[in-house]
């Protein structure tokens, strides 16, 4: 029992790591440090894929052992390689859709992705709100130490790295110009340039 459970646990851990790193590096690359501390939904999201990988691995192992299915390919006869492959690919595999059914303006995917739709949209929305709350709380404390909006805007615009593409620099400067408060400027700054730059340009005074 333990022998068949161990590869499934490995698959689960790999799936959790892949899911976490994919989400954080694509959507929250500069604010991941806040999410990792404060978002239960983030861990629930990763755990959901971990659980699916665990079940899939146990199922595949059982079907392979009983001879119902036969897996062919480099190293797939080893339960450890199979577990690794399932952990790495389960998330992408679950996003397969056969077709979409449109109801009004809503489009519902039909296929393996239907299963994902049961939990993913709600959890991703919660993660997004957790990130917003965490970022706002983090920069609000800092913004209180810099009460002059003009000073904050001037300092933020003067510290945009000149090595970034000119189009991005111009667009970011425009976003700073349109911001209506110090908190908003610092939120843009944190999301675009990260915590190290925020600490450098707007160091905590207390």
């Amino acid at each position, binding site marked *: 029992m333990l022998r068949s459970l161990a590869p499934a646990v490995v698959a689960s851990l790999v799936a959790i790591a892949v899911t976490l790193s994919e989400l954080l*590096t*694509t*959507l*929250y*690359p*500069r604010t991941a440090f806040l999410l990792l501390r404060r978002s239960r939904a983030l861990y629930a999201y990763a755990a959901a894929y971990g659980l699916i990988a665990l079940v899939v691995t146990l199922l595949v192992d059982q079907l392979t052992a009983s001879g119902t299915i036969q897996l062919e390919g480099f190293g797939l006869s080893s339960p450890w390689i199979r577990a690794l492959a399932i952990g790495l690919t389960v998330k992408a595999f679950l996003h397969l859709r056969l077709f979409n059914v*449109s109801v009004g*303006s809503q*489009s519902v995917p039909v296929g393996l992705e239907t299963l994902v739709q049961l939990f993913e949209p709600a959890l991703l929305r919660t993660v997004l709100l957790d990130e917003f709350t965490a970022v706002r709380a983090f920069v609000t404390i800092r913004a209180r130490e810099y009460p002059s909006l003009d000073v904050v805007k001037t300092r933020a615009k003067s510290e945009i790295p000149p090595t970034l*593409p000119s*189009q*991005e620099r*111009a*667009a*970011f400067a*425009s*976003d*700073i110009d*349109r*911001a209506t408060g110090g908190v908003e400027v610092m939120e*843009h*700054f944190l*999301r*675009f*340039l990260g915590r190290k730059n925020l600490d450098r340009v707007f160091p905590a005074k207390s």
Partner: protein
Amino acid sequence: MPVYANLTTNLPTVTGGAGGPSTILVKLLQEYDRQLPLDFVAMILGRTRSEIDQDVDGLERLGVAKRLGHEVTLVR
């Protein structure tokens, strides 16, 4: 939902690490590396067409993007 030929509507990663609405729009145009229908941009970014129009106006004034009918592209 409108269908846009040759354009993938997979969730883009451009909103990650973007500073604000204009920066997000520029990163989207960089990622696709082609002119994009304004309605498509609005759909992808989950914003209204008039919000996107405002951002495009701002980027046009900066010389970063230009409008081509109902499409937008980066200025090279």
